[in-house]
């Protein structure tokens, strides 16, 4: 017979005793210095938080930065490409890249800002793994990647209007105008099964 599970201990209202971790500037970090040495005006800012380095670079230089990281700093593995929509900020989007190095056994995060309508150079030619991630970012945010071999929507369907992960896209969705079989399922949904006037499609 199972005893009653004990209530979680100390899940109460106590605030953590030690101070929260704070972000620190990482301008002097060797990786950042190496990027700055190779591409002088690429790095805009660098930050460190909880042991993870974040480098903000200029949008036009992102492909060059990626190539530098891959070839010179041995960040051979592109973990992820995604974006964040800062609605009221200029530039609106942050395109975020994560890279991992096997020899260093560590990751680096590279960000670049992209305004509405601006295209970001694609790194799909540098890292093959970024192909679908960039397609997903285009699909979800509407950020174009110039030079991408096949920039199509991936998670939504062709004909979908709008970019779902933008902050102004409502959670309930919008009428995307891509009705399928409109003669059977009109906009707003089909008829109720108990409606005697419904058209029966056999």
């Amino acid at each position, binding site marked *: *017979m*199972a*005893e009653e*599970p*004990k209530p*979680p*201990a*100390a*899940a*109460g*209202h*106590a*605030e*953590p*005793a*030690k101070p*929260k*971790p*704070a*972000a620190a500037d990482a301008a002097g970090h060797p990786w950042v210095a190496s990027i700055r040495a190779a591409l002088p005006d690429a790095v805009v800012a660098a930050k460190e*938080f*909880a042991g*993870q380095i*974040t480098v903000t670079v200029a949008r036009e230089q992102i492909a060059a930065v990626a190539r530098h990281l891959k070839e010179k700093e041995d960040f*051979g*593995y*592109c*973990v*992820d490409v*995604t974006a*964040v*929509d800062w609605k009221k900020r200029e530039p609106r989007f942050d395109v*975020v890249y*994560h890279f991992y190095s*096997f020899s260093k*056994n560590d*990751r680096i*995060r590279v960000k670049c800002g992209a305004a509405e309508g601006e295209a970001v150079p694609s790194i799909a030619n540098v*890292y*093959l*793994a*970024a*192909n*679908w*991630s960039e397609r*997903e970012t285009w699909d*979800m945010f509407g950020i174009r990647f110039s030079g991408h071999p096949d920039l199509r*929507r*991936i*998670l*939504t*369907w062709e004909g979908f209007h709008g970019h*779902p*992960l933008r902050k102004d*896209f409502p*959670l309930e969705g919008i009428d995307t105008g891509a009705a*399928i*079989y409109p003669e059977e399922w009109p906009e707003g949904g089909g008829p109720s099964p108990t409606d005697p006037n419904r058209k029966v499609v056999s």
Partner: protein
Amino acid sequence: MSDEKISQAERDEAAHFASRAAAAGVARPLAGKGDTPASSSAEPPTLFDVQEMELNFGPQHPSTHGVLRIVLKVDGEKILQAIPDVGYLHRGTEKLFETETYPMGIPHTDRMDYVAAATNNHAFCLAVEKLLDVEVPRRAQLIRVILDELQRLSSHLVWLGTSGIDLGAVTPFWYAFREREQILDFFEEYCGARLTLNCMRIGGLPFDLTTGWIERLFEFVDDLPARIDDYEQLLTDNRIWKKRTVGIGVLTAAECIEWGLTGPIIRASGVEWDLRRAQPYECYDELDFVVPVRQNGDTYDRYVVRVQEMRQSVRIIRQCLERIEAGDIRGKVPRVIKPPAEEIYASVESPKGELGFYCVSNGTNRPYRMHCRPPSFINLQALPKLAKGHLISDLVALIGTIDIVLGEVDR
């Protein structure tokens, strides 16, 4: 073979039926009524010309991998091009994360990789715990590792069974699911759910273990190596199995790194990289286990690596059960979780590869952006490269060997 007397109404009807047929997963012929043939020369194609046919490996097919559509261009049996079309299971999970508080997001992660829900929960909780800098107590760490490894066993058992059935070996499926039933019983006893577990909380665990759970789990993992021997006896040295898997879908180590493939795929290609070893989380750094590595990178090697991983999971569970001690199951976490306005990336080694969460917080109790890096999504990118040149019969083996779960691919 174009017929000039086709009326516009017939053209529309043909187009309508063609679109419905395409949606229903039936092949479109190369030159249908109303199409103009690509080459307007009058010579018929010879036997040696490549006759390209486009097929739909439709969203529903007998392999139990979920709703995945692959558009195949084939020449007879040989695949010229395989283009996956995903998104059938897209549910907007990342958008939902932004509208709910942090603890409310954990059940959503269950539904992503629904075969290995505990690792999803774990990755999510790790990300938030890193933001908050919360320490998870030792007992909770050990139990988390046990749940993770049980989940790895469960996921690999599903993979083994379905891979076997796809290639015609019907029996390992039943054996694997017999073991999996027992694992799911353990989960049900612990957190009440078999599949969508919601079994971790930020800072620790929701519940403590019930009486006898540890003893029964000990018995179970003592039995398991013999059962894994059963599966191996049916498949590993079977000549037909080897013929179907050796040399199929070969990936070199460089290709794996280039394509961002992780998990058993990269380990079967010779790179000994496992997040549990390279960047240990919870208490993995003190556990004694081996990361199985093979050199050839074909489907057979990925099979062997996963079976060896099952054996190593058994070892890990046993070690954790031996070390388990009394203690708290949740660390000191504030009542309302409001991480500092920073961003973090945390990842775990899920059965399918590196599962990571990238979390951007704006200081409120809801994430501003919570992005999941799903291993199945990234691994599936390599399918066109893998499938090219193989036969249609091999495509099923390849989908099985990449081990995708569509919930994770589409989120």
